[in-house]
């Protein structure tokens, strides 16, 4: 056994039925899939040995993504091509590994270096792109955009880092938003949608990118 663990970064997509899978369940799913690959996975030390695995960010229930990232650790180096292939064989169809790369062990944890997330929101015919735009801009004219979460008031305004609108894209009308995702300033698109009086269940929200420092 090699004593320095090999850190592997995996980028994957999540879609279809599995978008209704929560964060913990997704983590468990990866643990079992990793066990099925029979790769030399590093386990945590101690009495209750578990697979060492680290997901960058929780994806809200119902969202799809083409840019989720997680880290795993191996006992010995394995060709990333093989890791990706084995993982895809072991994963359900609705999760696909897109990229695998070896990264420096000394890098900070994914959560610590995550800055923001990009989302594409498909805008439903009701209320339609124009109304959506208007409501969104109206929201931004206010000094603060406050919501209450777990009895705490949060101002979303500084967490909206970027946005744009796309009409007539192949997937219909869409809005692009970049939201802060750092540990102490984490904004969720569904909160924003609720403020726009839109049921998140009526939209398809796709995370397209995680941005790290």
């Amino acid at each position: 056994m090699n004593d320095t663990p090999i850190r592997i970064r995996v980028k994957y997509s999540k879609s279809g039925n599995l978008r209704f899978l929560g964060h913990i369940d997704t983590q468990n799913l990866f643990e079992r899939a990793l066990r099925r690959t029979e790769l030399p996975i590093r386990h945590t030390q101690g009495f209750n040995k578990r697979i060492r695995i680290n997901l960058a960010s929780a994806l809200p229930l119902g969202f799809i993504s083409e840019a989720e990232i997680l880290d795993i650790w191996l006992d010995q180096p394995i060709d990333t091509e093989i890791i990706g292939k084995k993982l895809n064989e072991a994963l359900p169809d609705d999760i696909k590994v897109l990229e695998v790369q070896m990264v420096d062990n000394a890098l900070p944890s994914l959560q610590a270096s995550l800055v923001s997330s990009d989302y594409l929101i498909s805008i439903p015919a009701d209320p339609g792109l124009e109304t959506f735009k208007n409501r969104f801009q109206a929201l931004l004219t206010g000094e603060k955009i406050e919501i209450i979460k777990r009895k705490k008031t949060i101002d979303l305004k500084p967490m909206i880092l970027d946005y744009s609108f796309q009409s007539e894209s192949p997937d219909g009308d869409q809005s692009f938003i970049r939201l802060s995702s750092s540990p102490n300033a984490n904004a969720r698109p569904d909160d924003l949608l609720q403020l726009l009086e839109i049921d998140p269940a009526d939209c398809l929200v796709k995370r397209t990118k995680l941005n790290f420092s």
Partner: protein
Amino acid sequence: MKKSSQTYTITTLQKKFTAKAILITIMNSLIEKILYHVEKPGRYVGGEHNQIEKDWGSTPLRWCLIFPDIYDIGQTNLGLAMLYQILNAEPDILAERSFAPWIDMEAQLREHDLPLFSLESKKALKEFDILGFTLPYESIYTNVLNILELSGIEAYVSHRTENDPLILGGGQACFNAEPMADFFDAFVIGEGEEVSLEISHLYKAWKANNGSRQELLFQLAKFPGVYVPSLYEVDYLQDGTIEAIRPLRADIPAKITKRIVPVLPPHPEKFLVPNVEIVHDRMSIEIMRGCTRGCRFCHAGMVNRPVRQRSVDQLIPTIKNALKSTGYEEVGLLSLSSSDHTQILELTQQVHENFHDKKLAFGLPSLRIESFSVDLMNELQELKPGGGFTLAPEAATERMRAVINKPLDEEDFYFTVKKIFEHGWRSLKLYYMIGLPTETMEDVEAILEAGIKVKRIGKSILGNSAKVHLGIGTLIPKPHTPFQWLPVESPETIQAKIDYLKAGTRKAGIKMSYNIPDSSLLETWLSRGDRRLGPVIYRAWKNGAKFDAWGERENLPIWREAFESTGVDPDFYAYRERGLDEILPWDHIDIGVKKNFLKQDLQWSLRGRTRPDCRNTCYACGILDAFGETRPDNNISYWGCP
């Protein structure tokens, strides 16, 4: 993400990954929308690793296998896994799954006028040919009615139309499913591995001939192991007991003999791996079926004879393959009496040898009380330490143990207990039963004394970290057991015994778990009942009873009202001693064990006479008469009968 030469990319996949492509892969948008509004949507969407999804349009026969409790409880059911594999292995059959929706999901379905759907293709249950309900216990009966209603199918067989799916039931409760007779087109009695395929063939032929629904039921009724309740009539005497149970046609058998598989079929290996957290999320491997010990209170021990086992040579590759295809970290090696597997030591040794470096936990429940069991557990414990030890003496005096036919040498018992603590298990759970026939306060006091003595032994070895836990169950005399004629004990007496044990265990620092008498009433009525309970079940469900296994106590007033308004006396089924010559509601269901054998066993019981393990001496219970001819030579499959 920065690319390097060490990077693996799937570009084509990324290109295909558009919102539209994804939408098509999921069900219709309304279902999708309601999933946002339920607590655990992962229960309803399937998509697990190893799920089998066949082409709906080109597969002629479509089954939906339904476990009428939530996904969290039903998904790991081994019977369901077996049928799923067996049916889907046939090219012209597809089998999908469905479960009872939890209350929040049911509300969403009703609010949006959506039918309950299958996990795989999200088709409404009504679109399937056959709905196969698993009925492992009685407290899920109301859920069956609820599922039928959510599917737009009439509860009563007599109200169904030609186009409705065939409603089948199977599982351990079907050895007396009379209370559900009004609602099922047919029950499969006994083991379903072979008969489910045979029914499929019969159904296909019937469908090809454009037969009527009635014709299908007639054909099924003639089929070995299939019981079509609507084709039998029950007459009653003045006092409410049964005068006769008669088939309505001469060409239908008067008795339905259960089905068995002479050789246990290949074990499923490609288990579905749940994506959401569920109860008992582990892999179950059935090492043996049936039991020869003959404990007189044990329904499973009587209805699942004869004993058949899988050999170590079959089991080790099965476990290997199953682990490989699932990634599970915990395995349960299941049987009614693990110590009685003829190769049990070899099995645990081989498990140790093959899996010791895999960081897996292996469970071996249902061990006999003997020091050998500690050796077996020790072998497995080394793989992954942790957990407690469980023993089930069931009764604490020698006399009482003779009555229930579970003899145990006191010295052996305490020696085993000592060994358990010496090997470092810190917690020991002991199961006992109260409400046993001829039980006196002395027998109950002995339970407490045993607990105290065990605690003392633990303390002398491990000090204060030794934990003892008493699990107290109440006897429900079950159909097809030697106790089937006996009444259940009155709630007052049971309560008094529980109070006594509660006070005593609290003083002694022993943990105790128990059921209040009320909570076993429903199981009592439904397991010992007859078809006159149909309207009671219907009424209780209409008035809101469902998930009775979860809230038995809360639902009790609903059930009492249902009995009252339908004019059925619940005590008739619970507290009445039945005459030895009485026709019992389940007498036409033949489990292979003869009624006369059970009668004799009851008489032996009341005289305190035991009947030792029948692997050594056959008592001619009837099993060999019923199934001896199908028995393969011993090299192929071990049978417990000598």
